[in-house]
């Protein structure tokens, strides 16, 4: 990453933003939402849920499929795939239950996006991966155990 590029990009974003990717492309609704620091810093699942969704405990659902290795040799890179047949999915949230800060990621989907996401996460130790799906205004959750041989959070 070279500096000229960095400042070049910043220049685009600051000044010509409207043209390149400013207000026209990134609607206020998305960008205006502050990054929820308190949820990402919460140290247990219950706290994350409280900070992120404020309400309720999500309902356990067998309609959410979490695909992940049963044994992850390296906790620093755990491939996971989350999908659900639930209708009208608005978001999928991924948590690593025993991570120092469990909240990993929160994905919002537009109406035309499939309820499917694939990524790679870190797990500090053997733990459940929890997926929370918001569908049609209601919350559902599922988990899957992953055994970690080498933790992904140490130095």
């Amino acid at each position, binding site marked *: 990453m070279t500096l*000229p590029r960095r400042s070049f990009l910043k220049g685009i974003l600051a000044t010509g933003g409207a043209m390149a990717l400013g207000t026209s492309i990134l609607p206020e609704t998305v960008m205006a939402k502050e990054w929820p620091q308190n949820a990402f810093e919460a140290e247990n699942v219950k706290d994350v849920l409280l900070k992120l969704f404020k309400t309720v405990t999500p309902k356990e659902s067998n309609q959410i499929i979490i695909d992940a290795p049963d044994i992850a040799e390296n906790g620093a890179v755990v491939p996971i795939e989350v999908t659900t047949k639930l209708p009208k999915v608005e978001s999928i949230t991924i948590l690593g239950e025993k991570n120092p800060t469990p*909240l990993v990621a929160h994905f919002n*989907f537009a109406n035309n996006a499939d309820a499917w996401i694939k990524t*790679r996460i870190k797990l500090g130790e053997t733990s459940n991966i929890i997926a929370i799906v918001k569908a049609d205004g209601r919350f559902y959750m599922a988990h899957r155990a992953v055994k970690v041989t080498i933790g992904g959070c140490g130095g």
Partner: protein
Amino acid sequence: MAKSTIRLQAKLKNNVTQVKALIKHPMEIGTRRDLKTGKLIPAHFIQEIICTHNGEVVMSAIWGNGIAKNPYLAFRFQGGVVGDKVILLWKDNLGQEDMREVKIKKSRRRR
């Protein structure tokens, strides 16, 4: 222009566009120590990801430090046409950002 931090592809098959992104980023969690100096390595991770199709947001995400280094991300959406513009943008906790634009291509692989 210097090389982008984002590798992006959007491929159409059976009316579904699958977007795959690979981003070069350290995703430092902020609690690791430098083995030589013993000093904490400051947190440095992507916080926001946005993907648009012809200017409309199809997927946006907020990330913490629990996404693996050099993040990989794949997702799908309906209604894309070959040649449509797909843009992916990321922004990290230090205010750095990058974007990449690709056109939807037809997938050569069969399902």
